[in-house]
């Protein structure tokens, strides 16, 4: 199988870009899930989608829009009413979901090539993200596992909190490099490290 080429390849340079006092506030990295799949439920059929997520991925998503769950290798969250974004390090999950989600429950859309996932982690992650998005990133407002849909200028973004100070930002692949560069620029104030 041919490996996916990341849109960040020419600009993602690992290293430590610290502040003058050698500290770094955030770590930036690209997460490259093998599968990114969007699941959409027809009105009243959300339970069927949640059951499919449980069946295919073994993840329990507690509710609808906003709620979610994340492990080291897989995640799922509701980004809009009846709509969920799931990702896994393994490839081919769209096929598995196509079997699990019948036409009466909803639809399955493979976005494994269409979205780029950028992870921002560290004590200043909330601070840096707040430069881009009008979203309350504090943990009471956006608990671990939760996700939201938002936008930065023309860049649509879906963001999931995957740890106490860790967020995965899903952006359209074509915008990924531009967003990455903006993110690095915004992170200079707090110092950053690229993994």
């Amino acid at each position, binding site marked *: 199988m041919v490996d996916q080429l990341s849109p960040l390849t020419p600009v993602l340079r690992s290293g430590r870009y610290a502040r003058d006092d050698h500290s770094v506030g955030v770590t930036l990295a690209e997460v490259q899930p093998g599968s990114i799949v969007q699941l959409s439920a027809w009105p009243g059929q959300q339970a069927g989608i949640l059951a499919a997520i449980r069946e295919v991925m073994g993840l329990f998503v507690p509710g609808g829009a906003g709620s979610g769950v994340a492990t080291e290798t897989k995640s799922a969250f509701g980004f809009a009413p009846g709509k969920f974004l799931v990702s896994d390090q393994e490839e081919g999950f769209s096929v598995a979901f196509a079997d699990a989600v019948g036409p009466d429950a909803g639809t399955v859309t493979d*976005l494994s090539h269409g979205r780029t996932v950028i992870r921002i982690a560290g004590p200043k992650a909330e601070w840096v993200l707040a430069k881009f998005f009008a979203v309350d990133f504090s943990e009471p407002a956006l608990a671990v596992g939760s996700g939201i849909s938002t936008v930065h200028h023309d860049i649509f973004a879906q963001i999931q909190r995957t740890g106490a100070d860790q967020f995965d930002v899903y952006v359209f692949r074509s915008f990924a490099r531009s967003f990455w560069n903006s993110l690095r620029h915004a992170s200079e104030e707090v110092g950053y490290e690229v993994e």
Partner: protein
Amino acid sequence: MSPRRATSGGLIDRSRSIRFTFDGQEFTGHPGDTLASALLANGVTLLGRSFKYHRPRGVLAAGVDEPNALVTILRGEAREPNIQATMLEIYDGLKVVSQNRFPSLGMDVGAVNQLGGKVLGAGFYYKTFMGPVIGPLKGTRFWMFCEHFIRRAAGLGKAGTMADPSRYERMNAFCDVLVVGSGPAGLMAAKAAAESGQRVILAEQDARLGGSANWCDETIDGQPAGDWAAATVRELARMSNVRVLPRTSVWGYYDGNTIAALERVTDHKASPRRGEPRQRHWTIRVGKVVLATGAFERPLVFPGNDRPGVMLASAAERYAAEYGVLPGEKIAVLTNNDGAYRSALALREAGCHIVAIIDVRADISQPARATAVRTGAEILTGRAVTATEGGKKLHCIKVQAFDAATGQISGDPRSIDVDCLLMSGGWSPVINLASQAGAKAEWNERLQAFLPPKDADGWIGAGGFNGTFSLDAALSEGFAAGGGTDAGLLPATSSVDLDIAPAGVFEITGKGKAFVDFQHDVTSEDVRLAHREGFQSVEHLKRYTTLGMATDQGKTSNVPGLAIMANALGKQIPEVGTTRFRPPFAPVTIGALAAERYGEIRPERLTPMHDWHVENGATLYSAGLWHRPMIFGLPGETVEQAYVREARTTREAAGIADVSTLGKIAVQGPDAADFLDRVYTNMFSTLPVGKARYGLMLREDGLVLDDGTTWRLAEHDFLMTTTTANAGKVMQHLEYLLDVIWPDLKVTLTSVTDQWAGASIAGPRSRDILAACVTGTKVDNETLPFMGIVYGEIDGAPVMICRLSFSGELAYEVYSGAGHGTHVWEALIAAGKPFGLVPYGLEALGTMRIEKGHVTGAEIDGRVTARDLHLDWMLSKKKPFVGSMMMIREGLVAPDRLQLVGILSRDNIPLNGGAHIVEELDQDNPHGSIGHMTAACYSPVLGQYIGLALVKAGKSRHGQRAFISDPLRKRFGPIEIVSNHFYDPEGKRMHG
């Protein structure tokens, strides 16, 4: 020691010195100094020239209300004008210059304007230069001639023309309670709110938090108020639920308790850390706003009240207490209230000589008299200052008897030698933000001031903002505003028992200019002149005189101006009313609003093969947000030579183009086919799985929205493609229809534009090339007929291939996962090499589609119907569709509508999109347009310049001659109108 720096006192760091320059002269100050305090400490009293009359001006205030002392900061080649010296913290290497003067601040030729007298009064330019036509001097032209000189002679600082190299950022924040202002009331509110567990942001516009606690002589909780404030700030800063923002001006109050603020992050630093912005713009969504913004002391309006050395009493007190600066050696005080007595005493205790306290009131309170006695000053009640003397600095005042009830002056003037006159005309609560939030100000007779209303939605006030001037009450209000309920937790205070309620005296009339609005040089006589000329509404007064319209937004002039207007009208102040304050409360740097968008105003959108294009010599240009190859030029080729070669090679052999930018929407669900039947003019429910169809989409008004092919991938799964330009618009249109018009349809829409990389491979050898590299499927005519879809692999990567053509040649679109896009593209390039395959850009793509007569966004311009584009064959009569109700609307079927035609250049000169087409050529008076060019190129297959156009009744004009009329580009010449199908109209090549 600086001439005006006290030997002790103040909150500055005397252990360190800072060097800075003002107008090229080097000065020193200390950390904690503002430019104003440092210059005053150095004995500099002349800081600027006034707006219109170029009168010498000093410092009037000590904070954000300063109207006079505006300077320009020089940062390398960048310059930032109109910065208040009172808000500018000094740092090593700071360079500032004065402004609105020539050749120098001390010797300003513009000062000749002072001789203009009444000629330069309010609205002088309207009256003087808008006159009737007299000989060659037409009024308006004369004004335009004079305007240049007037604008040079009047104004504030000049903005630089070099790019601002500073870095700005934006920040979003959310909190339960935002406290604006960190005086005692604000600190108490923040403390109470924070201790109850709420998320608190405390914003203070000054560098040092504490507000009046920093310069008052009162105590809180048994310690000096300043110490209490510093300890409280430290306590707040340690709390995890509190964010303290010093140097942050809250400048806008918007709907939904959305607050705009500007933080001056590194304006005070000589060398910001790497990545630190100069300023940060905050957008704060707030549960409750506590407005603890205090009050501004008002000047009194009297002749010569603008002379350097005349300043607000509280400002002088602050310079002494906070900066250890004595604003004069011999100081007089002019007041209409008790508050100035406290200022006088503070200055006396700091080491100043208080010569006299002049009170317009005949009787003063016992505490005021007792305080005055302690200052050692002569007490002159029932008196007023009626003139000041001095050039660039004050040296004498004239005092006469004054009747506060009638405003009458009597007796001979008495001269008193002073170098500083402090004035206090009462206090105006800073209600600007509440006003922005919609609060209607209420006049308070006792305080002679506008106060905020008691009931408010979203905010609560505390302290001076409410007109509450006692420390005890301010703390209590702050505590309550922060949600505190147990009054036993309030700290004890001790304060001076002085009532700041003033006498209703705003102006002392006399000979000479008495300034109301210092920054715009509006005098009391200007206000009366406006009244005499019929401007009775306060809104009209403001606009005619420009009172309150300068950068300080009338902070010191608003109430005095209203009072003088009311007096002229014979009305009470509340009858006259007040104007509503608008954002911004304080000036906001444009750069801070742009923030990270500076230089990156639009994100770049890149196709999966972008890097290959760059590495292989493509010249790119932007198409919306996308960056697309224009040409893949060879060394020495012009653009035209390159696209002609690319198009010719494609028609003769094969070419490959990146079409990843086409909009792609997954339309899925059991009702997807039905939905497509409704949104397209033609039928899609009959489309078999594995086939594609060209579709046309109309708006509700019957005009063409977009076109493209839609592929049926499975029974309930369609892939819709749109034009690159209209992808977003089509998605919005479809989502609207699903959400609002047909919510019962089981259809989902997902943008999958970025999921797929698309390569269009066209030309007579394209099938051979695919056959050479595609595995897993055949690509012959039987397996892959026109509009057929097959699945296979190219060099190990899964691909989906649809046979369709935009160029008119045998052509295919090869879709792969975007992450495989470059891999597949390179495999196609390699496979095509033996067949003469070339990559081509948008110019060649455009050339071939013009030759073929296909339409794009240039023709689908929001004004054309399907018939106009000769696409009426796509309008189904078997079903309704969006826009079908408009198909027989008279205006949309009129015979003289613009219709798509082809254009041949008959003088062999290139054509241009946008050029008009006329029947008769008249270069001197272009007229009679019958249409316009939409696209043009050199056609390699026709060997001439051609184009497409929209022309009135175009189809009936085929074969007719006309002319290009393009006066902007000076292109005139003969053309022939022909069919838009220049090349292979039967479509034999693409069906071959």
